[in-house]
């Protein structure tokens, strides 16, 4: 295999793995902070136990997320040096801002939070968790501004043989960045809701710590419901934006070949990219694709055939990841809505609780599918319309990349195994007994 393929594989491994941990960090930090604030407000020791129990799971997850994040920064230099050199004026500064405004804050205060239970007043202690939650989400802001710039470059000029910054405000406030951020954070919060709800459901099925896990479940399912409702509405805005910003991605994810107005959306579809058509297309919703893209049934939706083959993204992965993401999101909405409706009689619905346990991995799949669509759908470009992925790779040998790709797979398997083992172990064990954690707020 050539260095391009190996580097792409390595980037995919590093990103997929990193993103198994990031969404839970974004969402569970907020949930833990909410629990601790409730503890400070009410003095109810049950909230302190909740904070500690969910906080412990948060920490294990956070550690793996942090260490695997460095890989992503390094890889732009090691494997994508031509990219770094060409767009570093813009992209590099966004990553540097992320480090100085967000990473320092979260890394310093997560330690203060963990080690500082006896050293800080309860109010100050809860504040440190909020700082961690805010910092994690600020980090998402900057990395997604950077990613949005790759998806939809703006505010730059080509000068001195590279892309140089022309308008910083345009880069950081562009619609693509704003929508990507809201969409990603909404998805991350939904995932955290399902994580907490699923583990709670497992204990509720066994009638263990019923009060503790009923409270956790209610908080999580309410959080998950709001976020997945939001996600459905907002996802529509993102799709509409693709119609103008990235027409090839929109066409690929819908497997839409022929440019036309009143474009229908097929419920049953299977692409046949070789022959530039669909092998199966059934159950059309008339004009739905036009409405999706333009809020107008007469809107013209560009088909893939309008673009040369070398400018089209891989259709099947884009199409599948989009359907998985959207389908799962609808399922999340239904599951959380039911949970919220029955929130006071949860144990009367064991079949529902069982479903919620099994649903824990689904938001993970949906999040990874979302990133697959984002990144694969941008191909063959690394910066949409500006730089091709094949022109971005470092002038290094495949023999250098192969060992590190294997190394990443082995190392990450070890981390994943150990990390999930610990989460599983502590999640099953349940909260610490009330006697040990029931002290009223000190000082």
């Amino acid at each position: 295999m050539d260095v391009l393929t190996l580097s792409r594989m390595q980037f995919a491994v590093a990103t997929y793995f990193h993103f198994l941990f990031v969404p839970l960090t974004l969402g569970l930090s907020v949930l833990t902070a909410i629990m601790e604030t409730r503890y400070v407000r009410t003095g109810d020791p049950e909230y302190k136990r909740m904070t500690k129990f969910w906080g412990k799971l948060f920490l294990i997850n956070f550690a793996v997320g942090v260490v695997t994040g460095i890989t992503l920064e390094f890889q732009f230099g090691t494997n994508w040096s031509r990219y770094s050199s060409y767009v570093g004026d813009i992209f590099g500064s966004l990553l540097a801002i992320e480090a100085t405004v967000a990473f320092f804050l979260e890394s310093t205060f997560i330690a203060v939070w963990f080690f500082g239970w006896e050293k800080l007043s309860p109010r100050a202690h809860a504040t440190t968790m909020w700082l961690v939650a805010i910092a994690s989400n600020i980090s998402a802001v900057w990395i997604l501004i950077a990613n949005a710039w790759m998806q939809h470059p703006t505010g730059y000029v080509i000068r001195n043989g590279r892309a140089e910054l022309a308008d910083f405000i345009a880069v950081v406030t562009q619609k693509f960045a704003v929508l990507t951020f809201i969409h990603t954070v909404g998805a991350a919060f939904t995932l955290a809701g399902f994580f907490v709800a699923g583990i709670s459901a497992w204990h509720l099925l066994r009638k263990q710590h019923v009060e503790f896990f009923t409270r956790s479940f209610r908080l999580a399912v309410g959080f998950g419901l709001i976020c997945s409702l939001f996600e459905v509405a907002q996802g529509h805005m993102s799709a509409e934006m693709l119609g103008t910003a990235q027409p090839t991605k929109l066409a690929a994810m819908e497997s839409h070949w022929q440019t036309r107005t009143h474009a229908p959306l097929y419920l049953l579809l299977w692409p046949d990219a070789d022959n530039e058509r669909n092998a199966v297309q059934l159950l059309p919703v008339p004009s739905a694709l036009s409405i999706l893209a333009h809020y107008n049934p007469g809107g013209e939706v560009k088909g893939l055939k309008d673009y040369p083959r070398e400018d089209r993204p891989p259709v099947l992965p884009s199409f599948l990841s989009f359907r998985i993401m959207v389908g799962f999101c609808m399922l999340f909405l239904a599951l959380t809505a039911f949970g919220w409706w029955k929130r006071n009689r949860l144990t009367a619905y064991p079949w529902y609780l069982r479903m919620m346990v099994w649903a824990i991995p689904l938001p993970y799949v949906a999040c990874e599918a979302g990133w697959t669509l984002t990144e694969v759908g941008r191909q063959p470009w690394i910066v949409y319309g500006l730089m091709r992925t094949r022109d971005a790779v470092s002038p290094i040998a495949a023999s250098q990349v192969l060992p590190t790709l294997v190394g990443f797979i082995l190392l990450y398997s070890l981390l994943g195994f150990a990390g999930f083992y610990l989460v599983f172990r502590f999640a099953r064990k349940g909260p610490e007994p009330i006697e040990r954690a029931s002290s009223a707020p000190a000082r």
Partner: protein
Amino acid sequence: MLETTWFVIWGIAWAVYFCLDGFDLGLGTLMPFLAKNDDERRIIYNAMGPFWDGNEVWLITAGGVTFAAFPKTYAVMFSGLYTPLMLLLFALILRGVSFEFRSKHPGTAWRATWDACLVIGSFVPALLLGVAFANIFRGIPIDAEGINHGTLLTLLNPYGLLGGVLFVLLFSQHGALWLAIKSEGALHARAASTARMLWPVLLVVAAGFLAASWFATNLYHNLLSHPVLFLLPALAVTGLVLARIYVSTARWWHAWFASFAAILGATMFGVAGLFPNLLPSSLDPTFSLTAFNSSSSPLTLKIMLGVALTTLPIVIAYQVWAYAKFRDKVTASSIAGEHAY
């Protein structure tokens, strides 16, 4: 002027990273020699516990500064040093998770595995960073296109290896002093005697490195034309000497700050000697990447200067606050509860 300012910030970011994470890397390296049982190992973990993650962000910042201010250097340096950087990354990943995973499970094999990861994950970065920086001081065979014509073995030249040994010793001394501050009883005594034992070796290697730099690099060129810069190696030497004096009078915080100054002085000596090069080419000086030929546009440099000058003082303020908050010794009772590694 902008480029020069960023060059200085670049150097300071690396120096602060070495001064802070240096003690974590050194202490992790020394752990097998210092700790005799599980409780002592836990004290070592918790002596670094509240700090290591915040310290490591200085590495990400140093990388980020390189990327933002000198993207061409970032590209050539990271791709040119592909294999050593990847080894550094693997090591740091292992070290980071060891902290969080190690004490979460009582199994002996589990803990021994993560202890080994901590030691490897501390020693390897200390060594590699030393080898890498010595080679940067010396120059790397990069051509006009920024392609490195050397291999991993090219880096393992005598001067590069000497740099690696110097970093390991500097960081080990720094780590031993940190443990002397943070522990008591037998562990404290072992940390103190290790610091005493390391010192003469460190002094010889440091003197050897300063002398070898005269022959292997152009670092002294800038110093000779601007003699005031000799204050930097002087700071390093003074720091080293003071560290030993404070050790004999058992003033551990003083000794640690002296060691801090030694690392700062040594790094800034190298940085000052490099200027304006960030990555000198050993093939032809005109291929060297400098603060001027590899920098970002003036607009980016200005905006980033605003960001750096507003955020970094705040970062330093809350990191100092966090250090002060957790300055107490780690004791058997402080690690008895659930709020410890």
